[in-house]
């Protein structure tokens, strides 16, 4: 045991030294001559608005130029959420075997347990604004504001988690764990379906410009970006809710 600990310490020290040496060789953060800002960045900065119709470079790169990578990330989120839910639910089954859970005890939220009117009233004011902000982040993501599908999905999920925490499992503003898993699948499907649609119209995967609509190329790209952002939002929101539901339900059963 002592030997293992000494070995671990040695590995950590060596890695720290190597990382510090490596960090010294990195270009400065705002250096215009650094490799990151010399090759493709200029093209994104000059062309992304007229090519994709998105004022936010980050959204343009994530959802258009590198749309295939973002599809992979969305699939990773979906798969990770699925794995977490499967693990948590099987552990919960093993835990509650042989135990009878009284029904009245299972769907109680924080407000019933602590009986505070403060939480109740605060949640009533906070939840609509958080939801509205989530939608604003989704819509404004391509318009020069920071934001986009991932952030929007997480903010919307936070709104529902607040509702779950305060009003319990019987909250009116709620998405159940099973429905959340289905929604996560649908979100990932929407993303991939946009890609398949462009394939069916005879283009490359996620080549938005091929859509047979009477629009300019930039508008077609905007439409495609909106489509996949909605998919990402659904997937992220539903995955977070599904994991939270699996965690919280486990707590309520025991």
């Amino acid at each position, binding site marked *: 045991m002592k030997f293992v600990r000494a070995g671990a310490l040695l590995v950590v020290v060596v890695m720290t030294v190597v990382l510090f040496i490596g960090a010294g060789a990195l270009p400065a953060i705002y250096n215009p001559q650094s490799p990151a800002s010399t090759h493709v960045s200029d093209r994104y900065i000059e062309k992304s608005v007229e090519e994709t119709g998105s004022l936010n470079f*980050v959204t343009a790169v994530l959802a258009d130029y590198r749309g295939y990578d973002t599809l992979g990330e969305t699939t990773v989120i979906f798969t990770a959420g699925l794995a977490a839910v499967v693990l948590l639910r099987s552990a919960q089954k093993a835990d509650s075997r042989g135990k009878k859970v009284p029904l009245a005890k299972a769907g109680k939220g924080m407000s019933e347990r602590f009986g505070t009117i403060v939480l109740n009233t605060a949640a009533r004011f906070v939840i609509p604004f958080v939801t509205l902000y989530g939608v604003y982040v989704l819509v404004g993501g391509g318009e020069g504001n*920071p934001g986009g599908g991932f952030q929007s999905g*997480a903010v919307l*999920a*936070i709104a529902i*988690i607040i509702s779950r925490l305060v009003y319990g499992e019987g909250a009116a503003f709620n998405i159940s764990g099973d429905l959340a898993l289905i929604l996560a699948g649908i979100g990932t499907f929407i993303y991939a379906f946009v890609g398949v649609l462009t394939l069916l119209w005879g283009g490359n995967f996620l080549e938005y410009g091929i859509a047979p609509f009477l629009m300019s190329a930039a508008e077609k790209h905007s439409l495609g970006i909106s489509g996949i952002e909605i998919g990402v939002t659904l997937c992220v929101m539903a995955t977070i809710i599904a994991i*939270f539901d699996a965690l919280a339900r486990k707590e309520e059963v025991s």
Partner: protein
Amino acid sequence: MPGAFFLGFLVFLMAVTGLSALFARDLLASIIMFSAFSYFAVLTYLTMGAPDVAFTEAVVGVVSTTFFIVALRRMKRGSSK
């Protein structure tokens, strides 16, 4: 362009909060320190001029803190020792 001193200060605070999250006896305190670590990471990204990454980090920090606290309540164990 903000000074390198401010950035270094933020990174120092990240190190402090991260280490105290590691060594805190109380697991709830550990979670709160981790949340503070996430907050300083947000400020660092903002200082470096990456608002999109900062936004993502802020949102993920909130969500992960919620997950940790729900898991902690499930564990019924307050301290690491």
